[in-house]
């Protein structure tokens, strides 16, 4: 202090310091800095006191400075203690649930951003980050699953991320939930997903869109994990739509080819039809519950209010049946069941690992998962369950028949997936939820393996997909052959491989509930064994039918591709011993009758034997059989011409209607309304704002504005 400085000099200085402190409180984000700003305000106070005390010649002002400093220190100490308590809180009480679950979703999501923003410049990093993050998510899921196991049976881990929607009485929180069912699913999605990511590093090497591909793949995984871990149906729907979008992006990944883009579009549109049903189902559900005062779509809440749903009706129909059927409509779209299965075979257009991901670990299992998740609701609607079972069984048989006559290796597998999903729905429909999810898990192993193996073959042959131009690859691609053989035996249902146990449980449950469907299941099982055997024989056995250039090109795939195959093979062989149904608390279903097991085994071996006889020992016979069958064979070969039927009945009329809408209705009616509303909202927005924001800085601002307003009132009076 210069000794002769005037009082105003100090007062001005202190006012400036006080203002800086105030601004600091209002604009800084870091809580420590806010405290420092408060200290700054108090120091300005001290300065005024000292300055006044000196000019007045009074000691009082200097005494109070000490007290103000003491209080300031106490305030800071208490503040830090509370902050510490807050942080410790975050780590102790909720930490287990808080930290782990959200990371399962966030890790792959982080990968998306990495690939989008940095990927193109750092391909090498993408190779590590893409699979690595999914692997890390798998690790987190494993830890969470162990923590779940430590809980008593029926325990649930929950992670409240934030309140997402709070609209009047309706509330949807972004809550992640891990129970036995979602834990199994999360492990499959991240585990199998991780292997597919690793494989993709080899398969996609050198592709121009490498980073874009991994961005989509990570996004796909993220969406599926949201779907699986969602605690309420609104969040589940977000994931549901997310996988739909990603499948569109990935199927049409090589969009330069028009048929690929068309396949992507087809997948998206067919899924939309199913999703419309799904959404309607959600609306009916929330409307019914809301009418009784429960504005919620939380799974746990729905299960708590089943009494309400049991008796409720809508338009004379019982609500559980209506909701069940509408949601199942969504499931037929997403999980490729009759009549909405048509997109899946075309989805082969994408890179082969994508097919593996869509068919095995993610997307198509969404419908199965959703119904398993809501099994309590479906239990109220036996009629809806019957529909599920019948559609499932019909799809299983229908797709298996088509698969026997396809020559494109991936197309065989595609119809095989449709057929196997039919099994899962059959299981759900006859009340064997545990068995259905069990089959989902084992199917994830062997179907991922079959697709990746097929990818390995295609890769080795330089892009060849037609089985009629393969053969004799056993010696040249030994790892691929043996792993695919394991997967083939597993899907055919040869004991003791994975598929045997899960499929048997479903079929035996079907026999208990609806014997007709059980017979259908057995027939489809025999067909499964046949077409799988046919695929293996045509590809790997017999004499080589390779084209000249493929003959030169053929080689075993690199370890980055074969290693995932080997790991998946272990799962395909031993997956049947996983205690999945017991984990889900459905112990009663296990144990098919011995006779049925023998019959199923006989059919599986018989189907494989027939395939070997027809395609290796007597390769001329199939052509003769086909000729004898004539028109029917053509029909099967052309996939029963369902696509053509849809084209004539649905697509053409739709385009005609769309034309009318685009020319007449849209520009005048819709645009006019939208623009008008927008103007109205823009004019009134900003008038209504919620004051109590919960942000303490807004409160502080309000405090100071209040003081200023009082002052302004005086000045402007």
């Amino acid at each position, binding site marked *: 202090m210069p000794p002769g400085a005037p009082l105003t000099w100090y007062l001005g200085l202190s006012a400036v310091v006080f203002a800086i402190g105030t601004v600091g409180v209002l604009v800084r984000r870091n809580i420590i800095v*806010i405290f420092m700003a408060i200290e700054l*305000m108090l120091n300005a106070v001290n300065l005024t006191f000292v300055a006044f005390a000196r000019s007045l010649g009074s000691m009082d*002002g200097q005494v109070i400075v000490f007290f103000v400093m003491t*209080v300031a220190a106490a305030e800071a100490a208490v503040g830090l203690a509370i902050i510490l308590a807050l942080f410790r*809180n975050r780590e102790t009480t909720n930490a287990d649930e808080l930290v782990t679950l959200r990371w399962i979703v966030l890790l792959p999501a982080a990968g998306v951003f990495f690939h989008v923003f940095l990927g193109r410049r750092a391909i090498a990093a993408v190779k590590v980050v893409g699979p690595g993050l999914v692997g890390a998510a798998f690790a987190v899921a494993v830890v969470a699953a162990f923590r779940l196991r430590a809980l008593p049976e029926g325990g649930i881990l929950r992670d409240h991320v934030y309140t997402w929607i709070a609209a009047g009485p309706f509330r949807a929180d972004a809550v992640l939930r891990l129970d036995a069912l979602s834990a199994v699913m999360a492990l499959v999605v991240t585990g199998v997903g991780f292997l597919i990511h690793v494989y993709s590093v080899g398969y996609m090497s050198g592709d121009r869109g490498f980073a874009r591909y991994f961005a989509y793949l990570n996004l796909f995984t993220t969406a599926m994990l949201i779907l699986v871990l969602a605690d309420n149906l609104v969040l589940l729907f977000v994931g549901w739509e997310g996988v739909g979008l990603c499948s569109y992006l990935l199927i049409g990944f090589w969009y330069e080819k028009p048929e690929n883009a068309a396949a992507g579009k087809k997948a998206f549109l067919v899924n939309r039809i199913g999703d419309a049903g799904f959404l309607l189902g959600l609306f009916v559900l929330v409307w019914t519950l809301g009418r009784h005062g429960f504005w919620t779509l939380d799974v746990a809440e729905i299960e708590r209010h089943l009494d309400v749903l049991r008796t409720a009706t809508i338009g004379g129909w019982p609500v559980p049946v209506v909701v069940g059927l509408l949601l199942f409509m969504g499931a037929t779209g997403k999980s490729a069941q009759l009549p909405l299965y048509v997109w899946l075979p075309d989805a082969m257009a994408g890179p082969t690992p994508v097919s593996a991901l869509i068919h095995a670990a993610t997307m198509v299992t969404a419908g199965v998962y959703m119904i398993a998740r809501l099994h309590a609701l479906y239990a109220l609607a036996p009629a809806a369950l019957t529909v599920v079972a019948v559609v499932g069984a019909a799809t299983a048989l229908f797709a298996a028949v088509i698969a026997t006559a396809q020559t494109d290796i991936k197309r065989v597998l595609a119809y095989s997936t449709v057929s196997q999903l039919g099994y899962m729905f059959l299981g759900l429909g006859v009340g064997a939820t545990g068995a259905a999810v069990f089959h989902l898990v084992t199917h994830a192993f062997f179907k991922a393996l079959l697709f990746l193996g097929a990818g390995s073959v295609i890769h080795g042959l330089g892009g060849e997909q037609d089985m009629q131009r393969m053969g004799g690859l056993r010696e040249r691609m030994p790892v691929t052959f043996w792993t695919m053989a394991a997967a083939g035996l597993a899907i055919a249902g040869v004991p003791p491989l994975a598929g045997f146990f899960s499929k048997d449980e479903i079929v035996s449950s079907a026999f208990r509930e609806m014997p007709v469907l059980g017979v259908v299941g057995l027939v489809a099982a025999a067909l499964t064994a046949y077409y799988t055997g046919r695929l293996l024989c045509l590809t790997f056995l017999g004499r080589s039918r390779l084209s000249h250039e493929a003959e030169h090109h053929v080689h075993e795939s690199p370890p980055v591709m074969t290693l995932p195959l080997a790991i998946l093979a272990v799962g395909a062989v031993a997956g049947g011993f996983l205690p999945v149904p017991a984990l889900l608390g459905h112990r009663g279903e296990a144990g098919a009758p011995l006779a049925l097991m023998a019959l199923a085994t006989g059919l599986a071996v018989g189907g494989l034997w027939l395939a070997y006889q027809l395609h290796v020992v007597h390769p001329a016979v199939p052509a003769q059989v086909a000729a004898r069958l004539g028109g029917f064979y053509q029909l099967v070969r052309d996939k029963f011409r369902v696509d053509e039927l849809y084209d004539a009945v649905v697509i053409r009329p739709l385009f005609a209607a769309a034309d009318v809408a685009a020319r007449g209705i849209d520009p005048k009616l819709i645009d006019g309304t939208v623009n008008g509303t927008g103007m109205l909202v823009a004019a009134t927005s900003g008038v209504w704002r919620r004051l109590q924001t919960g942000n303490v800085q807004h409160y502080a601002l*309000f405090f100071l504005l209040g003081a200023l307003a009082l002052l302004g009132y005086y000045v402007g009076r």
Partner: protein
Amino acid sequence: MDATQSLRYFGPELVLTAAIMAVLALDLGLTARGIERSRWPGIVALAGAAAAIGSAVRLLRVPAREWLFGRMLVFDGFSVYFKVLLGLALLAAVWMSLGSREVRGQPNEGEYFTLLLSSGLAMLLMAAAANLLMAYLSLEFASLTSYVLTGFLRHNRRSAEAALKYLIYGGVASGAMIYGMSWIFGLTGSMDYAGIAAGIAQLDDPSRGAFFLALVLVLAGFGYKVASVPFHMWAPDVYTGAPIPVTAFLAVGSKAAGFAMLLRFFHFGVGAAGPVGAVTRVPLLQLGTLLCAATMTLGNLAALSQQNMKRLLAYSSIAHAGYALLGFVVFADAGVQAVLFYLTVYYIMNLGAFWVVMLIANATGHEDLPSYRGLAWRGGALPALALAIFLFSLAGLPPLAGFVGKFYVFGAGVERGLIALVVVGVLNSVVSLYYYVRVVKTMFLDEPRAEDAPVHFALNDLAAVGLLSAATLVLGIRFDWLLARVETARRIFAG
């Protein structure tokens, strides 16, 4: 009066200090022996609060009016009246804490009761402070202990978050207030209220503008303490996050102490220099009118849509601060009298309401309105009845204490000619009826649903609630004795 002589008039504070020491020592002893849970700290605290009230009641009969401790505190009927009221609030808070599941489940109960008693001691000092230094220190003392009490539920994020918000808001508010005080000191050259009143008379014209700025800042600081609009924003979050006994103590005790400071400073610090506006040309009347109307209206409107009972009562208590401010705006002895009467009545009915909310939270674990559905028909008839009495009284319905309180406040307003403000107040009472009755309707007219479990209340838990509801009923009919008390207490020592 020097320090040793002052001690004669310092009984309640001394008793409380001794009780704080006793609880602290007891807690140390218990911890040393490894005893985690014990009833004793709470019982000692209860005894201490009761002894402090006894000591304060004895002082009620002392007619002296004195400076204490070298012009730091004063002794007068006004401060003693507040000391009795604050002592009762403290007693109630300790009693509530003893029966609160939220508090009893926590470790460090000894610490909790120490802090609660300290907070009470700070409020007693606030009521008697007649010096800027003492006012600031006692206000900060009360605030600091309140912050910690608010965040006492360590494993509850809401509690810690509320404490942090309270702390930041309180820090800014008291920072602004002390800045204003520094200017008052500079302009008048004095720290004690009598000196300030003398100093104001000598202010020259430009200084008066600066003085007004300082006054607004001080008013903001006090406004924060009584939770008046626009300085109320901390209250809903803090009331919701804190344990219920602390919430009740803040709503009743902290508010009363804030009013004691507000009245003393503005009536007998600034106001003692003469008719307020004439000397300082400060439009305190208009300012007060504005604050009062805004506080009543905003508090009631915001309470309309609340679903959480603590939050509903938080906004309701903001509205009640508005009614009490009406008495402050009157700026006369009649006004002070009305405020004292109102705060007393408010103490009874608001405390009772919080008490029932705590009992129900103990029984059901919930504080939201849906958990009150059909309460009367599933084992909670007595608490439901008590809560109905408190809520009707808060709304100001006739045969109850709240009506008398409002009557005197509005009456003082009419006498002063503040007709418009009184009309606003009456309209607000009508509005408030809606949300109070909604709770009553939920408890009595709504059918309990299957998921609403029956509740059980032990009779001795209901003792305090019964006492308070009886007081609400009696004070609605026989209030003359309280009026007489208030009459003697309103005369404030002006140095």
